[in-house]
């Protein structure tokens, strides 16, 4: 801001900051709101930005929202089970992402014989199946931890993640 002095000189006063510069790191709640709207891959990238972002992006609540935001009504009572079996981030990585992408890519024959292209909106059964597969994954890790099967057992979900040569 330019001031006109009595003697005609011009001096510059320090520019007072009227609007503070916006830094996203100072506004965690806004950051969370933005991250909530991302897809899984972007959320994973966000976790690589810096330590602070990593901490926020790993918040399981974000992944819970990602897992079930297209399910209506949202499944109730699921949270304690999912947390006990490994958390929503793992649920997304291990089950939800492959299930959604596989079922979305292929045409699913529903019992009546019609072909529907499954949209990104989950059906209740897809949710249930994902949760069951997640539980099997947890159990296989339990079995492996006991050393019963010798070297780390391959999870039955590995087949799920390999791209299928159709």
């Amino acid at each position, binding site marked *: 801001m330019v001031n006109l002095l009595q003697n005609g000189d011009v001096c510059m006063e320090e520019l007072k900051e009227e609007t503070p510069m916006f830094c996203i790191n100072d506004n965690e709640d806004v950051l969370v709101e933005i991250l909530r709207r991302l897809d899984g891959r972007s959320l994973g990238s966000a976790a690589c930005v810096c330590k602070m972002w990593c901490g926020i992006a790993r918040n399981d609540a974000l992944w819970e929202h990602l897992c079930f935001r297209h399910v209506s009504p949202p499944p109730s009572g699921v949270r304690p089970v999912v947390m006990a079996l490994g958390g929503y981030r793992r649920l997304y990585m291990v089950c939800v992402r492959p299930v959604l992408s596989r079922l979305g890519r292929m045409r*699913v024959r529903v019992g009546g014989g019609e072909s529907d292209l499954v949209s990104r909106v989950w059906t209740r059964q897809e949710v*249930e199946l994902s949760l*069951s*597969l997640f539980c099997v994954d947890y159990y*296989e890790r*339990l079995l492996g931890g006991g050393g019963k099967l010798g070297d780390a*057992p*391959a999870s039955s979900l590995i087949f799920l993640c390999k791209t299928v*040569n159709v």
Partner: protein
Amino acid sequence: MGPYDSSVSAGSSSGSSSSCSVKPADPIDGLLAGAGYRVRSSELRQVAQRLERLETVMINAPTEVSHLANDAVHYNPSDLASWVDSLLSELHQPEIAPDPSTFSDLNYIAHAQGGPVLVNPMVGHCELSSGTEIEEDSGIRLVHVLMTCAESVHRGELSLAASFIEELQGLLTSVDGERGIGKVAGYFIDALSRRVFAPQEASLAGSAFENAVLYHHFYEACPYLKFAHFTANQAILEAFDGHDCVHVIDFNLMHGLQWPALIQALALRPGGPPLLRLTGIGPPSPDGHDSLREIGLRLAELARSVNVRFAFRGVAASRLDDVKPWMLQVNPKEVIAVNSIMQLHKLLGSDPSRGSPIDPVLEWIRNLNPKIVMVVEQEANHNQPEFLDRFTEALHYYSTMFDSLEACSAQLEKSLAEMYIQREICNVVCCEGLARVERHEPLDKWRDRLGGAGFTSLHLGSNAFKQASMLLTLFSAEGYCVEENEGCLTLGWHSRPLIAASAWQAMPVLQHPLPLINHHQNVI
């Protein structure tokens, strides 16, 4: 679809009204003859390939083709083979070696037997790596000699069988033993040689630990067991709806892979989880190591994590008919589910007119008054009294199964799964009497048997079907198919069902008392 897939027949066409008089040695294909074309059945494949080649050439080089209309000599098109050849040479296309065939194993078997092919030969999963006619013929010859060897075993001519086995081992070197017919034939030749040369140690039964490991890898390599577990769990879940005290009796616990999903589903059911009791039956562990209890502990840990009240009991028995109902400690207030994944067939005998060990077992199952009995069995007829029939059926069945296993990309799982299947093959082919436990019977026979023992069929609902379809979409390549068969579900490969799941309920019993905990009446 090739032009020949529905018309391969050894000269005895059924539907065609052709009036061709056929020399038995060189049959003209009947169906094409009805359309006015004379093609020898043995040349059908080559003619088809050349027709496809001709089509490609004509599409790619239309200018060359037009001259044919002007001054080419036209051969009689009804002699299809030479007509195609002449056109190809007119267009200056060199003769090509036959394309790598997409014969499936079944096509080989059918060719070798000379019978009509019931399977679409274009639907093939096993590409021969060198793709020459010589190799295809070796494959056909291999199966032919295999069947002849089995026939001699069937007639008891063991020295003749031994010479065939030598020939077979020689033939094996000229086919690709890593895939397709070579691989399946290898296992069957191995089984036959065990039967002929070392009948005492023929059975490949390993320790319980080994079996459990192989079973686990079979679970991971292909979807059959996953299908069995998930379908059974869905039916059990529906049967348990509204009950607070439930008891599952598992006839073959193994690593308990079936139960985490049920525990989780019960944890999340509306109204909260019931008290779940699981009784797992399994073979006794050697040297004091209680593997049943360890599995029970793991399952209990999982149940505790998801807040399901859980109690486990292990029953060690080497055969299912050693189990007595009092060992199960059934509580009259609880609702019971019996779960048998590929176990009941082990109790069958070979002579249908005499009783078999399964009858008393079915009786005590019925006396438990279970709300649901889940039966999953291989969909095959491996309990026929005649060796040759069993052998033929097993060759078809396991060829299909090996075909389906080709889709598995995880190498370790695939190899161990093959070992698991190899044990079944050896048991079907090599063993007799009490040692032969893989006595698979098809779904219709199980329906009769269970119906006669006092059970009614429960229809597996559409939920089970949808779940099975979803499971297949996730885990498999194209080729697997789920079908519904009068309330039962089957999973198969290219329309050949390989495993069938059915649900049953005991018909209301009026006179039999329920066995209580202190009831020591010997039901066997």
